[in-house]
């Protein structure tokens, strides 16, 4: 009898809870109405394409579709790993990414430090506004500006260097493979340094002014303050951003390499994204292109997962 009672009670509780849950859903009907259409759109455009990864394991022909194309297992990947061009593009991607990362950080932090020392608020604001300008220009326009500046015919850089007497005749900057990576790195610095410094300047303004005062009392000068207070003050920000950016290391950018990497510099300019575009859209080898794109995504996801895990743990540590 007693056992039966308990079972009955449990059933009643379950029923009440189900009713409660049902009522919660009912009261939140409008929330569901608001979010479900957005979820459907996101599902279609972000998740559904993942089914296309099946192409990487097929010899995909568009007229046959996913179902009738022949499966080839990992053959596409095998071909990829033996392809010299793929490894070359892989290398280019990594090198340009690392250069962008290092230069991006050093210049953004340096700029933030110098800007932080400016006293006049107006001058500071004007400089900052000017430094954001390139961020809002598209890569297409930035590439056009770069090609003008680096042009052998009346290009500003060549003019300047010739005026200073550093060089005798104009250098074909964009035609020389040795320069390409540096051009990409400095273009990235130019475009994003102001934007990337926003976060550091914000972190600096959050540093307790009393720290600076006590440093002054201890006889510290400007450089002591920068080295012992400002830099340690923004260190958590730097570390978290650095770790997060390592997760994006497979993305070296696409537009500048695609738009400026012509002719002679092709061997050093092509990234994996361009490889995908060339094989997939131009040559119609969809399976190989999907395979390389998939490889890139998977590496990225793994890296991001690792870096997120690390930065998550560090965040916890910094709280204590």
């Amino acid at each position, binding site marked *: 009898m007693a056992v039966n009672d308990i079972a009955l009670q449990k059933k009643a509780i379950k029923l009440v809870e189900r009713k409660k849950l049902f009522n919660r859903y009912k009261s939140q009907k409008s929330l569901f109405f*608001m979010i479900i259409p957005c979820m459907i*759109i996101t599902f279609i455009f972000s998740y559904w394409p993942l089914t*296309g990864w099946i192409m990487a394991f097929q010899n995909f022909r568009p007229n046959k579709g996913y179902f009738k194309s022949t499966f080839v297992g990992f053959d596409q990947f095998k071909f990829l790993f033996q392809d010299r061009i793929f490894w070359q593009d892989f290398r280019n991607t990594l090198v340009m990414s690392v250069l962008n990362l290092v230069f991006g950080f050093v210049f953004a932090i340096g700029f933030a430090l110098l800007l932080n020392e400016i006293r006049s608020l107006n001058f500071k604001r004007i400089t900052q506004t000017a430094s954001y300008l390139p961020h809002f220009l*598209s890569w*297409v326009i930035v590439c056009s500006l770069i090609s003008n500046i680096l042009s052998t015919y009346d290009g*500003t850089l060549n003019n300047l260097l010739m005026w200073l007497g550093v060089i005798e005749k104009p250098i074909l900057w964009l035609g020389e493979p040795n320069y390409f990576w540096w051009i990409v790195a400095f273009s990235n610095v130019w475009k994003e340094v102001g934007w990337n410094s926003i976060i550091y300047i914000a972190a600096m303004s959050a540093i307790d002014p009393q720290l600076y005062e006590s440093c002054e009392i201890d006889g510290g000068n400007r450089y002591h303050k920068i080295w012992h207070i400002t830099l340690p003050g923004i260190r958590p920000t730097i570390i978290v951003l650095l770790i997060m950016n390592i997760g994006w290391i497979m993305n070296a950018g696409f537009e500048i390499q695609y738009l*400026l990497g012509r002719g002679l510099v092709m061997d050093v300019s092509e990234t994996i994204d361009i490889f995908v575009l060339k094989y997939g859209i131009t040559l119609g080898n969809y399976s190989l292109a999907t395979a390389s*794109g998939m490889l890139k995504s998977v590496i990225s996801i793994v890296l991001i997962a690792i870096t997120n895990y690390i930065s998550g743990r560090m965040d916890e540590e910094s709280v204590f």
Partner: protein
Amino acid sequence: MTQIALKKNKIKLEPIIFYSINTTIMMLVMIVMIYPFWNTIAVSFNNSQDTLRGGITFWPRDFSLFNYETVFKNQLLVIASINSVLRTVISTVLGVFTSAMVGYVLSRPEFVWRKFVTRFFLLTMYVSAGLIPQYFLIRNLHMIGNFSVYILPGLISAFNIIVIRAYMQTLPSSLVEAAQIDGAGHFRIFMQIMLPVCKPVLATIALWCAVGAWNSWFDTFIYCFGKDNLTTLQYEMMKLISASMSSGTNKSADAVYGNMIVTDSVTPVSIRAAVTIVASVPILVVYPFLQKYFVNGVMIGAVKG
């Protein structure tokens, strides 16, 4: 005595040296940031034959509006401008509205699916299928050569949602509760209370959406290839650069613009300068006024993202 005087002198001297060096560096930074663009403005207003002589720096030497006249008389570039404006306006309005709506739902602590749905959107920031699967999806949806390809695929951005949600979570909860007691439904609370209150963050998101839509050319290149009525300004700009990159700067503009009224007095360099200005001024005019908003937006994004 002399020592004290020296010390005083030192204290006064160091900041002066430092500030003058620092100010000089900042001035140089400013010049480096602005000059390429400034120079392009000067070239675009200069007579194009005169530009070929070289040496245009800060000001046009032989002022002329002819480059712009040529641009605005060109059918293709006019269509491109209209398409760019249309896609920017539509994707900004829809993008801000949907991100705000999702952000609102996810900021409601009582929402039953909150955790799952938050992850559902967050994951899209990290997972990308790649170009080819995306291309086939668009093809299977018959969106190739369709204006909707400019709006729908990038409509909902997880990053924007997170920024908006973070902003909404900082608002006092009494704001929503009071409205709920008055009997307002969620949609009404969202429309009449949340949207007006969140103006600062929405301005940031609107700027980001607009910049993204205005500056993109790759979707035109991939999905609307050869469709002249769907071309965009950035894509036309891309064609101009490609032409000049693959054959040096002296290639005639009519290889790209067969239908352009190319006269001897318009050169590719000048056309490119004029299109550059047309394709970037709309955003450059707006962003300084939104500066204080987007600085906050960047911080929220960096902290939460």
